[in-house]
């Protein structure tokens, strides 16, 4: 039996990513979700932080593509299984059988045309779950108001079976008597990515969500901010629809709340509150916006800058946790009881309050876990494997996303790819049967154009709007049209067969399909013609359905004539398919480099692993233990052993890359090893050059041996060389500040390291007095539990600000630290034996810039590489075939580095899976004779597909790298830069048909 199917349960960012990676590698994917549509929480978000945009489309392994919702729906290797829950699991790794209960949606998606007539007549109106009840919906409704594909379902709990919808449904798609059913899926591996739900804000009764109109949950407020919301994205009070005068966010509602059974930090609420606050300020500059918080956990890449933007935008930050909200009935304002850091209780008035309710797990997830023999609590999956992330206790079952613990989208996406890489090992090689079978296309380039038109009636939709006979006659009269045929449903299998036979009998070499949108038809037909061995550019789409909506034959004809004119003038590009090297160069032999090398090698890709020092392992070699109690040096040993033993991996130590050229599928990189210089041919490159703990320059470091860094403390504690004594730790040393010589960014890991070392100190000597001076304590996700635990054990935590930094005197026998103790608001002096500095991480800026130059990628001023998209593509560069992982991308924990490394490996492997690379159908080219070599096209190309040939005095294009966006053509003033399929004359003539 072929073992080529993977089951993915949960279609949020992690599940979609896992599905897209697997599908791209030629595996079959069943993507199940308990909701009627895939997407998870994602469709709630109009914009993301810190990009202030969506950007989810970059999740695909190779771009451009549609957004993953559409892509998962369109991909021939992905089968969606909506409204499904797992009822039973049997079998084992390599051979699972999973039983599903399928909830009847009562709407046949194959028949439904999404016309919405049913929704209009449905008399039932209930609160819409999506957006936490900000608006209402009918009993027959689209699950997401903005879902892209077909999305109507019946909510049978609220449906009264009145049958009105059935009466108005033209295509007869509704069956209110539909029964729930079951199905069985056989899969070789399973990826669990059920995500997390949002904490029910109403459960924290003291804030009055559900009782007071003007108290909103974060989900409800997020929906309000969406452009498509009932308020059109304006911030108005539900009580009176008036613009709010002042808005308050209360953080940590249902998070960091052990008494409430939610000890975890939800990791994302600080950032989404900042985002919501920033959008509020942008749209309502006059509105006062206050955020009540305990710690601002802006720990991700570039998040610190985002926080600075929020401060600049005039958002007020109050470090206090309001205890209760009550209503002023006269004004409908909310009164918050706020205890400040000084311990004083005040009451603050705000016209609207948003509760930043975080992540939670529900019973469905618990029962899903149980079905697979796993356990979970509010913070997600139990027994997660730090050094083998995304594996679970059950072989063949992998986990990804917020289900593994609260996390943000970039981490979820990485975990999705990681889980895919791990699952793929259990599957047979992916299949690319169609590709192999595709004959070399006939490309018609020498022939005079013969242009045929197929008019699709869209099953009566178009002819109901315009006179189709008249249209046919008009189209037949268009100059350059050789014949006109009609079909009724071009996007169905029958329709495609019809078109195929029209093509065979009438023998056109230009075919205009006057059908519906490009999205629906284009890929289907391009694929069909490719399989037939015909150049895909033979098809041009005219969006007849769009034009028919005008109700005018004229308009419909103009749209067809536009496509005909363009098709007639079309010059085809020679088909450019080239075999690609499947091998990769990985630069950097630390945790990330070795993990990605192994991931790639295990998926059958040869790897050249290049390390500049004489030893693999990087930071793992000098770390002693992790907060989860594991030994990084043991991990290093294990990874080194595996890497060195793997036949597909060649290791170069004490080596550096001195030259790089080429492109995806065909890079040539020169490696200077101690005794030799080797030129390596490879298909893609992964940069994992790392970063290391910075050396402090302040607080007496270097003046006293008792001023040490966290890493030095860790070393002492692990080796038994710690002499004992009391400790003050200072966080954010030279981090998170814009002063000269400091790091502007947050290094993400230092707070957790401080807590980890405090734990270890107490373990060795429970009486050790430890004081941690911090700015915001950023023990995100389940690290929060460790923080709470050391607090309970007596570690003192006191915050400081940049205006009032701790003062240190290292001159005496003891180290004196003077700081403000917030609980009494007084300066105190601690005399301690050790001062431990948390200094953050720094990459090798010069080497990073050198490599960036060699490979044509970008790095930021701090020396971190700049990824393609900060949310959905954190492992890729914009330049095809270039990848990044680990600390070279941003500071992160070992586990997170491994995840990113495996994810980068998975995405790289997905792109090189077929062993060939291909130019787009209509790549750009250069008319040498009129090229002025000005370089504007080179600047315009986002992919580095163009460069100037200073000998021949022309720009040149690498068609394989080109993505056919047309930016170069626009940049070129005289159109020496061109694109196949759209010469300026062709566009001009086609445009003229529309005027």
């Amino acid at each position: 039996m072929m073992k080529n199917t993977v089951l993915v349960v949960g279609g949020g960012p992690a599940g979609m990513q896992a599905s897209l990676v697997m599908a791209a590698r030629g595996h079959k994917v069943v993507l199940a979700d308990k909701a009627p549509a895939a997407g998870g929480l994602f469709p709630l978000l109009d914009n993301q932080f810190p990009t202030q945009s969506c950007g989810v489309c970059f999740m695909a392994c190779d771009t451009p593509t549609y957004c993953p919702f559409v892509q998962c729906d369109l991909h021939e290797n992905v089968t969606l299984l909506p409204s499904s829950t797992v009822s039973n699991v049997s079998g084992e790794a390599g051979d699972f059988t999973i039983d599903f209960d399928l909830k009847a949606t009562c709407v046949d998606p194959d028949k439904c045309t999404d016309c919405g007539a049913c929704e209009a007549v449905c008399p039932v109106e209930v609160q819409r779950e999506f957006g936490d009840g900000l608006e209402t919906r009918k009993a027959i409704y689209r699950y997401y108001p903005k879902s892209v594909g077909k999305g109507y379902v019946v909510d049978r709990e609220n449906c009264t079976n009145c049958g009105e919808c059935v009466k108005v449904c033209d295509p007869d798609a509704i069956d209110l008597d539909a029964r729930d059913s079951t199905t069985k899926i056989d899969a070789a591996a399973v990826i669990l990515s059920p995500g997390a739900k949002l904490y029910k804000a109403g459960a924290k009764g003291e804030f009055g969500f559900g009782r007071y109109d003007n108290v909103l949950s974060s989900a409800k407020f997020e929906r309000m901010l969406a452009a498509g919301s009932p308020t059109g994205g304006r911030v108005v009070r539900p009580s009176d629809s008036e613009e709010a005068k002042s808005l308050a966010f209360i953080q940590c509602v249902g998070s960091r709340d052990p008494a409430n059974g939610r000890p975890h930090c939800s990791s994302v609420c600080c950032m989404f509150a900042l985002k919501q606050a920033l959008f509020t300020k942008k749209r309502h500059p006059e509105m006062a916006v206050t955020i009540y918080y305990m710690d601002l956990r802006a720990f991700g890449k570039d998040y610190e800058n985002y926080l600075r933007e929020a401060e600049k935008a005039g958002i007020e930050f109050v470090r206090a946790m309001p205890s209760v909200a009550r209503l002023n009935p006269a004004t409908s304002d909310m009164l918050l009881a706020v205890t400040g850091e000084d311990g004083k209780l005040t009451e603050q008035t705000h016209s609207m309050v948003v509760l930043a309710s975080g992540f939670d797990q529900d019973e469905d997830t618990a029962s899903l876990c149980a079905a697979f023999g796993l356990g979970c609590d509010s913070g997600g999956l139990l027994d997660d494997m730090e050094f083998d992330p995304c594996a679970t206790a059950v072989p063949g079952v992998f986990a990804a996303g917020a289900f593994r613990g609260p996390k943000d989208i970039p981490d979820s996406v990485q975990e999705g790819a990681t889980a895919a890489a791990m699952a793929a090992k259990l599957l047979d090689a992916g299949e690319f049967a169609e590709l192999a079978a595709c004959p070399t296309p006939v490309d018609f380039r020498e022939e005079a154009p013969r242009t045929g038109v197929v008019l699709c009636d869209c099953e009566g939709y178009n002819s109901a709007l315009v006179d189709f006979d008249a249209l046919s006659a008009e189209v037949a009269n268009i100059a350059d049209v050789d014949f006109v045929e009609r079909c009724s449903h071009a996007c169905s299998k029958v329709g495609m067969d019809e078109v195929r036979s029209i093509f065979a009998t009438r023998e056109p070499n230009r075919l205009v399909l006057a059908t519906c949108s490009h999205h629906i038809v284009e890929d289907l037909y391009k694929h069909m013609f490719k399989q037939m061995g015909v150049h895909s550019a033979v098809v041009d789409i005219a969006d007849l359905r769009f034009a028919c909506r005008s109700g005018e034959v004229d308009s419909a004809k103009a749209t067809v004539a536009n496509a005909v004119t363009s098709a007639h003038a079309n010059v085809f590009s020679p088909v450019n398919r080239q075999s690609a090297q499947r091998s990769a160069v990985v630069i950097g032999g630390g945790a990330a480099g070795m993990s990605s090398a192994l991931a790639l090698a295990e998926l059958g890709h040869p790897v050249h692993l290049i390390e500049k020092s004489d030893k693999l392992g990087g930071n793992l070699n000098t770390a002693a233990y992790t907060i989860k109690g594991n030994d990084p040096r043991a991990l290093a040993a294990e990874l080194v052993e595996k890497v060195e033993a793997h036949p597909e991996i060649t290791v170069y130590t004490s080596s550096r890359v001195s030259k790089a050229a080429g492109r995806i599928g065909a890079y040539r990189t020169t490696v200077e090893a101690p005794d030799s210089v080797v030129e390596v041919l490879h298909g893609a490159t992964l940069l994992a050059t790392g970063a290391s703990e910075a050396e402090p320059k302040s607080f007496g470091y270097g003046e006293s041996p008792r001023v040490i860094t966290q890493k030095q403390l860790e070393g002492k504690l692990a080796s038994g060389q710690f002499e004992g004594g009391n400790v003050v730790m200072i966080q954010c040393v030279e981090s998170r500040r814009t002063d000269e010589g400091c790091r502007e960014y947050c290094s993400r890991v230092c707070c957790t390291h401080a807590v980890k070392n405090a734990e270890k100190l107490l373990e060795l000597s429970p009486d050790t007095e430890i004081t941690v001076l911090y700015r915001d304590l950023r023990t995100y996700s389940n690290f929060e539990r460790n923080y709470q635990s050391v607090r309970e054990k007596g570690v003192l935590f006191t915050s400081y600000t940049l205006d009032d930094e701790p003062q240190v005197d290292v001159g005496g026998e003891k180290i004196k630290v003077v700081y403000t103790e917030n609980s009494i608001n007084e300066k105190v002096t601690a005399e301690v034996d050790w001062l431990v500095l948390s200094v953050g991480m720094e990459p090798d800026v010069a080497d990073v810039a050198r490599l960036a130059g060699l490979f044509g990628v970008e790095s930021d001023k701090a020396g971190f590489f700049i990824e393609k998209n900060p949310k959905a593509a954190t492992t890729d560069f914009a330049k095809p075939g270039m990848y990044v992982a680990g600390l070279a991308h941003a500071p992160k924990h070992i586990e997170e580095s491994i995840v990113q490394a495996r994810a980068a490996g998975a995405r790289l492997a997905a792109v090189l899976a077929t062993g060939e690379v291909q130019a787009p159908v209509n790549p750009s080219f250069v008319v040498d004779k009129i090229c002025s070599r000005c370089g504007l096209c080179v600047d315009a190309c986002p992919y580095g597909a163009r460069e100037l040939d200073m000998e021949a005095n022309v720009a040149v294009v690498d068609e394989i790298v080109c993505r056919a966006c047309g930016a170069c053509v626009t940049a070129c003033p005289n159109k020496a830069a061109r694109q196949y399929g759209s010469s300026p004359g062709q566009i001009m003539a086609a445009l003229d048909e529309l005027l």
Partner: protein
Amino acid sequence: MKTALLQTNGDPNGALSAFLAGMIEKGIVDEVMAPAAQPGGSASMAVFADVTEMDAIIPWAPVMPVQGARLLSRLSFDDPGMKVAVVLRPCEARAAIELIKLKQILPDNITFVTIDCPGTCELKGFEESGLEMKTESNRMVDQMEAGAATAADGVGLRTACTICVNSSAHWGDVQLHVYGTKGSQSVAIAASDELADALAGAALVTFDAEPLSGRDAVVEGVNKGREAAREKVFAEMTEDAQSLEGLKKRFSTCIRCLNCMENCPICYCKQCIFKSTTFDHPGSSYAKWAMRKGVQKMPSETMLFHLTRLNHMATSCIGCGLCDTACPMGLPVASLFSKVANGVQGMLDYKAGASLEDPIPLSVFREDELQEESGAEDF
């Protein structure tokens, strides 16, 4: 920069041509490209290798038949293979800066010699005046001690020069300063440290002078007067362009000869798209357009040409005004175009020709910009 004073003995143009010849003789450069009197009359740019011919050079020639940057682009589009000193007026230097950024001039082997410019007269008018070129030029240079130079009565400066606010040398390896000094006595040569050392080493000049103390004030005075003139011309153009109708009235005699494009230093395309087959429509198209619109003007697409050209060059237009010179119908092309360019460059916070560092506006973008101007406000 270091400064030297060069004695001119009543003939600044002659003194400078001797200086330039010296640069060849001493092996500092191999050739010199500069404006020069043609043996048969009038002036043109020429590349000199033979020093005995170089007394024809008139750095401050009172005419500019073709934009020097455009000509320099012919010489240095690829490597000329030897070192060439090129004398450029400020507007030519500004165009050269744009063309360097657009890789139409490869500057490596070029020594840029820039001048404080007295302005130029229309070529035809100057020829008809019968004035002796060098004498007239020396006269104009001398005027620059105290302010703007004026052309002879009845000849007048080109409109673009009368509204030029960039007539002082602002960039270049060697700058010839005459604002604030009596050119008939001496000219200040400001050179980059490296070149100054070479020139001094070759005993051509001695760099022992201070920068001209009065120059800035004179330049400021000149600019102030020109600024006012410019405002006036721009206001006139704005008045015309209140409506498209007004503008069309002014430009109704355009014969779509494309000369304005041919003479524009910024229109660097090897073949303008308006001279390409893209605009060779089939005859049926004209007939169809006439049917659709009622009337079709022939030649077609005149306004399309001007507007498209502006979209291509307004960001880099340096206001040299040679489009005026080129226009056979005497249309105020330069006045209108430099006004439009001024508006566009102002919007983009870009000054064409000001510096090699600022990237060409059409090659870059910022993530947060032009929301209102583009009409695309992000919610």
